[in-house]
């Protein structure tokens, strides 16, 4: 039986979801793929200082068959979060060209304006590569089935897209991982900062700071002193700019202490919020800062701005983001992306749940960043030394 059935076979009725999730981590040409019983994990890294993980959960597919090559792996893992699946050595792991996979997934995006009934108004031009929001791209791939198959160890990863009259098959050469694929370690027991907020806020902030083309992103967070949470860009050709997420005026007297800062509180949703008892920026849902005593009351950490920008596609499509930092300064951005696998038009509603009976499936895309150390201009992958 096992010799005729492929190791892995999954069918999705909507390749657009796969495209949306994968393009979030499409910042590098190659991805390391790990097939597990719970889903398929795409890991992308660059220079060992930034890593992106997209986990395509089983629930995203209409059928998902995985026949592990040697021993069925019985370890139960938490689904929806690729963090813990790296210890499964029995699961097939290989490297493919992510850019080719993404191009393949959108191969039908530009074909026939008549067939894209869900979204007639949009242009039939190929999607603008600079567009940061997958939901604004032309009606890609709706109602087209997409099959992913991996027959045996060493065989290509085959992607088949079918549509009436045409069938496209792409066989992506699989390369052996070079063994150096180590996840950037996030010390879960030493998290000193955790901020959850709408991803759009972070996206807006990064876009705003990106306008001055800075080299370094400084993150500053404090539990008891203003600014509670601030992002600033420095080291670029222009002056420094800074964005502070402040507390609503009436709940806290937040004087405009700095003329150059931008305050992002003029949002309709934040106003409807009840008065808050603890000191947390208005836009955050969770705001936990517990700096170790060596740091004082404020957490300050620097990251290379261009690396953070690699997550901007994920920021744009995600609903929420969880920003975590550990004692060593490793930054984790976990994006929650809702895709409606049950309704083909779900993705066009944006990031809000479509209100369908079955509801959207929540998936996660993770990014990890190695910090810039004090006084160091270039990020050094190996050093995870202490701070300040």
């Amino acid at each position, binding site marked *: 039986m096992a010799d005729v059935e492929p190791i892995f076979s999954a069918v999705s009725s909507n390749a657009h979801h796969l495209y949306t999730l994968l393009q979030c981590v499409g910042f590098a*040409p190659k991805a390391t793929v790990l097939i597990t019983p719970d889903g398929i994990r795409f890991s992308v890294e660059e220079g060992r200082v930034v890593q992106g993980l997209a986990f395509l959960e089983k629930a995203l597919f209409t059928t998902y068959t995985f026949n592990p090559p040697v021993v069925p792996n019985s370890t139960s893992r938490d689904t929806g979060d690729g963090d813990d699946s790296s210890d499964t050595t029995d699961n097939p792991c290989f490297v*493919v*060209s992510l*850019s*080719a996979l993404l*191009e*393949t997934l959108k*191969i039908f995006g*530009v*074909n*026939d304006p008549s067939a894209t009934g869900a979204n007639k108004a949009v242009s039939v031009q*190929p999607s603008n590569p600079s567009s940061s929001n997958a939901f604004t791209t032309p009606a890609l791939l709706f109602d087209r089935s997409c099959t992913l198959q991996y027959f045996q160890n060493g065989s*290509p990863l085959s992607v088949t897209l079918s549509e009436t*009259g*045409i*069938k*496209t*098959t*792409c*066989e*992506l*050469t699989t390369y052996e991982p070079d063994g150096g694929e180590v996840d950037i370690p996030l010390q879960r027991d030493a998290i000193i900062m955790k901020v959850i907020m709408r991803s759009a806020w972070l996206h807006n902030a990064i876009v705003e700071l990106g306008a001055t083309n800075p080299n370094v992103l400084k993150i500053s967070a404090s539990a008891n002193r203003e600014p509670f949470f601030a992002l600033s860009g420095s080291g670029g050709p222009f002056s420094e700019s800074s964005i502070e997420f402040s507390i609503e005026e009436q709940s806290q007297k937040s004087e405009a202490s700095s003329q150059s800062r931008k305050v992002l509180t003029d949002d309709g949703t934040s106003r409807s919020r009840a008065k808050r008892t603890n000191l947390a920026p208005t836009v955050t849902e969770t705001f936990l800062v517990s700096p170790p005593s060596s740091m004082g009351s404020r957490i300050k950490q620097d990251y290379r701005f261009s690396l953070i920008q690699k997550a901007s596609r994920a920021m744009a499509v995600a609903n929420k983001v969880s920003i975590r930092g550990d004692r060593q300064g490793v930054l984790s951005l976990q994006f929650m992306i809702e895709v409606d696998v049950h309704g083909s038009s779900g993705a066009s509603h944006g990031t809000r749940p479509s209100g369908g009976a079955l509801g959207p499936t929540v998936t996660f895309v993770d990014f990890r960043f190695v910090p810039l150390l004090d006084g160091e201009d270039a990020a050094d992958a190996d050093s995870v030394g202490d701070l300040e």
Partner: protein
Amino acid sequence: MRFRAQLANAATFSKLTASLSSLGKACWMRLEDGIVRFTIIPDQGTQVWAQLPVDAIFEESSYILESNSGVINLEVPIGALHRALRSAVAATSAQLRLTKKGNVPLLALTIHASSWTTGSNALGITDSGHATPTGSVEGEDAGRAGQATTASRPAVVSGPRERETVITQEIPVKVLHESAIEGLHEPRCRDPDVHIILPSLFQLKNISERFTKLATDSKGSAVASTISPKLELSANMHGSLRLAIATDALRISSVWTDLVNPSLDPGQLSQAEIEQLPSERMRALSDNDEAGWAKVRIDGKDWGRVLSVGRLSPKVVACFIHETALILYVYLPGSWNGEDSCLTYYINSYAA
């Protein structure tokens, strides 16, 4: 030597010249009694031999052709002709004629366009001799194509009125002597192995371009920009067409099924002759036999330019000569049965 004709179908003529101009700069335009031929033979790439009945683009009654041999051969800068025709698309009437300025022979395109002005005197122009903004804008556009002269004659009545603009575009051409073209012949090929009607060229073009891009991207080196990737196009006599490309990183193919393999006209060939054709041998092979596929390797960029003829929404019959050449017969809408209005593209297959 005289040639003059009113344009009957400027839109078709404009699209035709646009498609031709993507393949080469100089076009051999041969005016005959009842037929106009356009031929492009680039140094490298696809040749086009087009023949259209006069009434496909000109008004037949106004078509005047006088020449000793009954034929006029011109070398026309096809891009300039296309740009000139663009302003004729919306015109009320347009006339094309062969003329001379000094010693330079010209094709002069005289376009009568009209536009409505609103209000009694929106521009505040009292002197009817002034050029209007409409006229000068079109004149600028025309200036890129060749020399253009513009004259406008606003009527002197008040109130909303029609304004006529006359634009003359002059395209310098070369008159070719019969000796210059006697060496040019349409390529001769053996009978095709597979003939098939292509799917929507729009769709085919998009997929082809994406494949070309995939192959270019995955190489990711400097050589990729200079060497255009080769697409593998194949078809069988069971209604299937396959477009494929392979690189180190991937191998991708799209297969169309349920296409039509047109039958040959029994009026032209006897039953015995038809049975001798290679395409009938290919038809006899089963549809899952790889030997039943005829394959050509074509240049991705050149193929994209050929497919730009899709803007004329034609029917296209592709004839595959295995590992040798691909010939496309492009029939303009409305001429499917007449077959006298046909563009023939000759595309060489590259060696593997």
